[in-house]
């Protein structure tokens, strides 16, 4: 019996393990997070050589399409030879034209956004003037019943397109945009995004500036919108200045939490310990997953051996009515953590001077007493640095893992 099964055996009498269901080898490095359709029938990702792969949920190819334009010799000379075709932004799958079929929106480092049909046929494209590395927000931003596509480019513009790829408006920021926008639905809809000079912008549905907030460094993380302390919506956003910021609807700082490293990806708001108060989880380049309270205070953290760049996943993978937390680290491991963490007691006579409620004694020798720490349930070595995790909500829950290689792995939970 493996450790994982034992640990699950302690709770709810459930026994199971996480196993790899399949892996898929692309012809070049996978450079995006995989996107999964709502019905799990379609998995789409992009590669370094500009190809879009569509797989079924068994990891079999549905179609492949190459999405880069032909360039003149002079133009090629000014581009990074082995990178200019790259697709860096996670594709988005949504029925953007209300035809009952999903479309796929892909954007490339050549600054072009493409919309493909469910079968991989190009429907339309739109060009910006610089590299696109962030996915679009696809939402009905003006409450007209149609979805719009809102995307930032390194040319400093945020573009709002209709579902036929026609420009509705564009907004010029003070620097390039590599952060995915988010929508805050309140008295009026707000489009919130970060920029390379560290500014958080809020625009109305016509693309007019409502407010802005300055952080200390570049923002690549998508803002997370949620109710954290009262009925009002808040904006949680990480910056490469190492801080996670909580802002109110008017862009006023509620609190900020300083981690020890740059924050690259979106934070997650979730009541992971069932105390009716949401917690906030995020990865940082201080090698840790941080779990903080809705007031911006540390609850616990878990330290891996290298940067935690991708967003954490929170799910009840084994249906025991308790959430588990998954993180991918640049130390080539995926970690599954208990959602409540461990409490290290100040003093327990008889066992040295400190101990903890559960787990192994050696885990806490270097930890400060009187504090909470993440409790590891399982970890899995993968081929390289973990660049993305994506939850798959099927009958047997699982996740897709990208690792800066040509391989996409799918892991699932299997009951014994």
């Amino acid at each position, binding site marked *: 019996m493996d450790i994982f099964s034992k640990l699950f055996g302690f709770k709810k009498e459930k026994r199971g393990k996480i196993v790899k269901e399949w892996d898929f080898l692309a012809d070049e490095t996978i450079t995006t997070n995989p996107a999964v359709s709502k019905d799990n029938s379609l998995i789409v990702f992009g590669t370094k050589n500009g190809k879009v792969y569509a797989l079924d949920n068994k990891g079999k190819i549905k179609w492949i399409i190459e999405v880069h*334009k032909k*360039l003149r*010799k*002079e*133009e*090629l*000379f*000014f*581009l*990074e*030879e082995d*990178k*200019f075709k790259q697709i860096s932004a996670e594709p988005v799958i949504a029925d953007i034209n209300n035809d009952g079929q999903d479309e796929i929106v892909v954007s490339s*480092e*050549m*600054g*072009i956004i493409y919309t493909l049909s469910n079968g991989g046929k190009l429907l339309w494209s739109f*060009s*910006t*003037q*610089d*590299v*696109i590395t962030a996915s679009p927000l696809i939402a009905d931003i003006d409450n007209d019943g149609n979805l719009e596509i809102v995307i930032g*480019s*390194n*040319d400093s513009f945020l573009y709002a397109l209709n579902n036929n790829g026609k420009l509705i408006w564009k907004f010029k920021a003070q*620097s*390039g945009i590599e952060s995915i926008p988010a929508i805050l639905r309140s008295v009026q809809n707000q489009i919130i995004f970060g920029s*390379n000079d560290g500014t958080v912008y809020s625009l109305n549905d016509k693309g007019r500036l409502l407010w802005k907030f300055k952080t200390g460094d*570049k923002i690549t993380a998508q803002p997370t919108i949620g109710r954290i302390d009262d009925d009002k919506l808040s904006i949680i956003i990480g910056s490469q200045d190492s801080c996670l910021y909580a802002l109110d609807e008017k862009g006023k700082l509620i609190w900020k939490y300083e981690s020890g490293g740059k924050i690259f990806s979106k934070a997650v708001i979730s009541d992971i310990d069932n105390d009716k108060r949401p917690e906030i989880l995020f990865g940082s380049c201080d090698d840790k997953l941080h779990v903080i309270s809705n007031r911006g205070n540390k609850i616990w953290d878990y330290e891996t051996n290298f940067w935690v760049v991708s967003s954490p996943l929170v799910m009840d993978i084994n249906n025991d009515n308790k959430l588990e937390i998954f993180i991918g680290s640049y130390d080539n491991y995926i970690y599954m953590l208990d959602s409540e963490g461990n409490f290290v007691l100040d003093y327990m006579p008889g066992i040295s001077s400190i101990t903890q409620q559960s787990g192994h004694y050696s885990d806490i020798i270097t930890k400060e007493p009187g504090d909470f720490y993440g409790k590891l349930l399982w970890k899995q070595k993968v081929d390289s640095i973990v660049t993305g995790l994506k939850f798959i909500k099927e009958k047997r829950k699982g996740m897709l893992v990208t690792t800066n290689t040509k391989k996409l792995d799918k892991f699932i939970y299997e009951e014994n």
Partner: protein
Amino acid sequence: MEIIKNKKEIERVKTHIIGLDENLEGGIPINHTVLFSGTAGTMKSSITFNILYNEALDGNTGLYLTLEQSTDSLLNHMVNLDFDLSKINLIVIPDISNIEKDIKSATKKGSLIIADLGAIRKKLKDTKFSSGSDWLNAIFNLIKKVAKSTDLKLFVLDSLAALYVLSKFEDPRSKLFFIFESLRDLNLTSYLISEAPYSRNNITEFGVEEYLADGVIQLQLTERYRKVTREISIVKMRTTNCNLDIFTLEYKNGKFQAMYGGKTPVI
């Protein structure tokens, strides 16, 4: 990079400055990226051209990439300094459309190739470029093309300051890290010319170049009783036991010389 077992295995490229190579264990280790830092008039371009010229005479191929000064102006200056350009296989790349053709004759050993990106830039001024286009990519694509067709060993970039103007440097630290790493990956001994501010404590523009470089050679003008002397010193050189004294730099009879290390020269 291979780990050497004996220091005698370290191959070096001479600076071709008499008196300085003797204080550098024979020269700069191959595949090093070295900054030549100094204010205007300190002969940075001439010293690095002199290295490529003398190495070409010894059968090694080098690429001199000028971003500001035109090829004609550079070569006229070198002829005025008594460089006999007829002794080397000199190739000028005037355009990016026929690089392969232009460097065909550089396949023979001992060539000095000059690319004038300033002129190329003028020719392309009305061209609309794709997203992600950057002069830094153009530089590395040029080096790769030349390296693919020739036995390229040495590279001079004149200058970093011009590159900072041409290329987007929103995140200079990462970009400079990329430049230095890429040059090492190309297995070239590279000389980067840096326009230094007027202070010994500030050698470079962003303050990180000297940490990223394998070596730094500083050039300066020193005033003594209304007489101005050129001086040269090695600030750092990895894998080298070097003399950090300040030397007087002179150019006489077609040779650079470093003299009076650590001593006040006779005025």
